């Protein structure tokens, strides 16, 4: 029985609890023994992205401590948090030190949810049913830092009843970017508006993404635009058992 540890991430914890619960149900249905290290907090990405490298180190150490207790893979339904752990943790510690070795170990077994499903568990069909026209927004970190592109499409194509429509400028940023939104709200919003315009033009009734941050931004944008298009996380879509009409 494969084991895994759940990394809940800040946004997931705060805004997308239901999504996290779906991760749990889904992975357990697939026979994964999922655990939840209770000492986990933030991965330190906000600090790191804003140039506070020294301050990131203790937060990263805390994360590593929490997850190093088990040697099971670490799963999170968020590309940017995974990317932080995967790509930047080793750079935080001096090479040759035990802390660095530990960081490399942790980073090597941290996976994004869809990445874990498709590339580790080799599951491409989770038995989901979702009879809707769906379009996909590729998140920046998920796509570019983790290099995940086909995984999510494979999963979506295997959802029963789902019709995947291409989003114009699919890989263009939605403008969220964490602290970027706070510092540059107007730039961020104009990027979001462009994204929402494309989503509406796609004629889909659902937009799916793998990133809670993008989801927050896009869902808010769609809501502001008075659109009835649903913005949901890939996990929630894959957990769907909606009956075929």
């Amino acid at each position, binding site marked *: 029985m494969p084991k895994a540890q759940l990394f809940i991430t800040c946004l997931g*914890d705060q805004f997308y*609890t239901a999504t996290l619960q779906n991760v749990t*149900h889904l992975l357990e249905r697939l026979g994964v023994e999922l655990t939840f290290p209770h*000492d986990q907090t933030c991965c330190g990405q906000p600090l790191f*992205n804003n140039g506070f490298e020294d301050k990131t180190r203790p*937060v990263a150490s805390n994360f590593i401590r929490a997850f190093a207790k088990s040697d099971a893979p670490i799963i999170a339904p968020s590309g940017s948090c995974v990317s932080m752990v995967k790509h930047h943790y080793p750079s935080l510690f001096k090479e040759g030190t035990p802390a660095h070795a530990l960081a490399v170990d942790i980073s090597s077994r941290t996976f994004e949810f869809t990445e874990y499903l498709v590339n580790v568990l080799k599951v491409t069909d989770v038995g989901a049913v979702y009879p809707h026209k769906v379009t996909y927004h590729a998140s920046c970190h998920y796509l570019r*830092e983790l290099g995940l592109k086909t995984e999510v499409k494979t999963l979506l194509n295997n959802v029963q009843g789902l019709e995947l429509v291409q989003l114009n400028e699919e890989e263009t*940023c939605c403008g969220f970017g964490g602290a970027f939104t706070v510092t540059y709200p107007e730039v961020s919003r104009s990027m979001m508006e462009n994204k929402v315009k494309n989503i509406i033009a796609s004629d889909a009734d659902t937009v799916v993404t793998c990133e809670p941050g993008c989801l927050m931004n896009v869902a808010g944008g769609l809501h502001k635009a008075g659109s009835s298009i649903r913005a949901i996380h890939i996990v929630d879509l894959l957990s769907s058992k909606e009956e075929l009409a």
Partner: protein
Amino acid sequence: MSQDTHPYIGFEKYSEHVPPSIPLAVQQATSRFVGGRAARVAELPQWEQLRQLGSDIRQHTIENMDVYLTRLEEKVVASGGHVHWVETAEEARRIVLQIAQENNVKHVVKSKSMATEEIDLNHALGAAGIESLETDLGEYIIQLAGTGPSHIIVPAVHLKKEEIAVLFSEKLDINAQTDPIELARIAREVLREKFLNADMGISGGNFLIAETGTLVMVTNEGNGRMCTTMPELHVAVVGIDKVIPDWESLTVFLKLLARSATGQKLSTYTQFITGPRRADGEFGPKEFHLVLLDNGRSKILKDPIGRDVLKLFAAVPVRMFAPCIKTWAALRMAHLSRVPSGRSFRRKCLAHKLPANCRLLPRSAVRVPMFALSRFQSQQFSVTFAAVLRKAMRLRCQLFQFPFERPQILHPLHLPKTGFTDWVRVCCRSSIHSSAKIIGYQICLIRLIGGQRFDRFHHLVRDSENGGICALPKKRNLPDDQPCDRQHSPFFRAHRSISSEPAS
């Protein structure tokens, strides 16, 4: 001005003045770059190899820069040109002014050049009573309007054709129609007259070929060719990083450049200038001066990562930083370059207060190492978009790691440092994390909802009124849906008892 005097530009305080209509219009206007690059790249199956080859050539040139620059000087002088080595921007301005004054120059025509923007040449010329006219159509329009560019690729993109017609009518004392072709005709007529009467042409350069001492310029409007052939005097201000070994290397860069920058196979004009005209009756200027600009570049060469960044900037269009930016725009994942906001890095914009409708592209951290390693603009850009850049850049380079490996050169970000310190404390102790973070998020949310600037996040609060801060739309038909509950801990605590957690 020494590189240490480059001021920190707080883009965030300018970005709030962007009229809502402009960013979207610009994004739409520039979206044609998006498909263009992808299509051109797809035509070349060896694209990635070409990028690597370009990168290798740059690496080699940078490592042997002294050799190539010396060779370049020899060849330029042998072909009858003059070479001026300048270390600082101030020195560069002085040299150009000196050349102009010695030749009694009154009117200058300029082709678009980032090197001259970098040294703020127009103001120096203006102060000396010399008229300096930008001849790129977009640049001409904004110079006429007396404002700065709103976008790095398309400087006048924020102006509608109606506005341009009004501008032309006012400034040129004619009755201009709003027809774009007509407007272009008017500009062409005015500019043609200026080209014929100019005493001196100033340009930048895309490449300097050491093998033959040739200056290479790629342009689309043809104004660059007019600037460098009509007047009797041609001064090219080019960064030392533009040198390449030979013509064979050039073929690699020319394949990459236009495809990356504008989605063209080749720019409309590719000019090769080797010295001044050799005999009366030949075309071209009587005198050719090449101003080789250092202005901090050699300092960057000493830094291994900085060197890599320089590599990126080395093979770029006339606008010095345009390649990455243009590539942003060109690539489908490009975004920032398509949103005008903040301010341009251009010196002239720093010197002038810009009207509210002319906010400029916020420049990423990328440009800054070029000017001063010690003054990063904002890491948010670099981190958020570095990965985009890495893929999009014409040449492969380590730019991506740059901000991470040089954290000390970053400007402390504009978010309160104290908040970060508290966050570290909270995150390091899981016992207080659970409760503290909830308060933290509430505070963040209150800040986020504090104004219309963040109105797209209002729905998060709306949901919170009904028991839980949750961004998920309420009416979801997902069977496994559970009520939004921000108290994750009980769920996971309960869950933990089911799935055995390893001993902690």
